[in-house]
């Protein structure tokens, strides 16, 4: 049955797995919801993989699908039912081990609106304004103005935390 999983798909997912975890980290506070949404992302990626035809980078496509899933999964995640621990849960990254700087940054990002969180995430990933505009559906000018404001907001937050 394990043959049902395309090895190309699996290799691409494993090479870009950080994308799913980063998005989950930015949108969901508690580890159970985070794990739930990462699993949902894997499922949606698997379902949509046949429509991926290499016109864009795999990582860009994965960002799109994962963001779509995270942004429309918020209501469902709150209703997530507890399930028994399995060995799979051992793979959940340990949040507490995140450094202070990274925690401050994640805390700062969590104060932003949902759309602005997506923008800053894509920016931190090193995407150009053009790529961010293409993934989100905003105009390039709008991305630029929003990121300018986000930058000010985040820097002010981090400064306050450092004082």
């Amino acid at each position, binding site marked *: 049955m394990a043959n049902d*999983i395309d090895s190309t798909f699996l290799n691409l997912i494993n090479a870009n797995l950080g994308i799913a975890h980063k998005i989950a980290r930015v949108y969901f506070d508690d580890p159970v919801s985070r794990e739930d949404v990462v699993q949902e992302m*894997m499922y949606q990626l698997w379902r949509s993989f046949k429509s991926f035809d290499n016109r864009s980078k795999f990582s860009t496509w994965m960002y799109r699908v994962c963001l779509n899933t995270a942004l429309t999964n918020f209501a469902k995640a709150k209703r997530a039912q507890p399930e028994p621990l399995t060995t799979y849960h051992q793979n959940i990254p340990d949040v507490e081990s995140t450094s202070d*700087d990274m925690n401050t940054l994640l805390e700062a990002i969590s104060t932003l609106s949902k*759309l602005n969180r997506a923008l800053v995430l894509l920016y*931190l990933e090193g995407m150009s304004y053009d790529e961010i505009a293409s993934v989100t*559906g905003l105009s390039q000018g709008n991305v630029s103005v929003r990121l300018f404001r986000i930058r000010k907001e*985040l820097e002010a937050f981090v400064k306050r935390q450092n004082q």
Partner: protein
Amino acid sequence: MDTLDEMKEKWARHKHAGQPYDPNNMLRVIRQRVRKHTRESMKYFWASFALQLLVYALYAHVVVRFLHDPVTVTFAIVGVLLFIPFTYMLLRKFKQLAVLRPDGNETSSVRQYITQQRNVLYDFFRFKLRYELWLIPLSTLVGTLLVFKIYVPGGPLAYLNGVWITMGLTLASCYLAIRNENRKSFRKPLAELDNLLREFAEENIE
């Protein structure tokens, strides 16, 4: 760490990934999600299907039992005819909603997907609201009249106040059940999607 560029460097150095998936792990995750989605879809499907079956069985029974009484048979047929298009459209639109994917289409953006998701959900909700607006009062009226015609000596005309009270109570309980279902399954998710789209629409932020 003061500037966004410094944050970007920290971000790049930080390891976010969990353990890689092997084929068995991935297959287990996919099976779990398929089961979860099927369970959620089927919950709605079976609830709706069971209601339709009950309604059709009840009206069919009435038609067979009171075949000699044209008024009763007419009421029962009207009841069946009310539900047939609703059942068909409900299941068709529900399928549309259930198969919606987060779009692997490489040319579509997050904004397009959220718009699509919102439109499909809104379309289903609007259909449900409109249909319920006249289906529930009409089917309640038909049901109440049938109950009084079959079980109350003298029929509905002899107990008009009783008919109105029964109808009122039935409508009130239907209203409460539908209102709660709509709030949980439609109004809240739609409000959240609308908020997101409003944020996207703030183009004049420039």
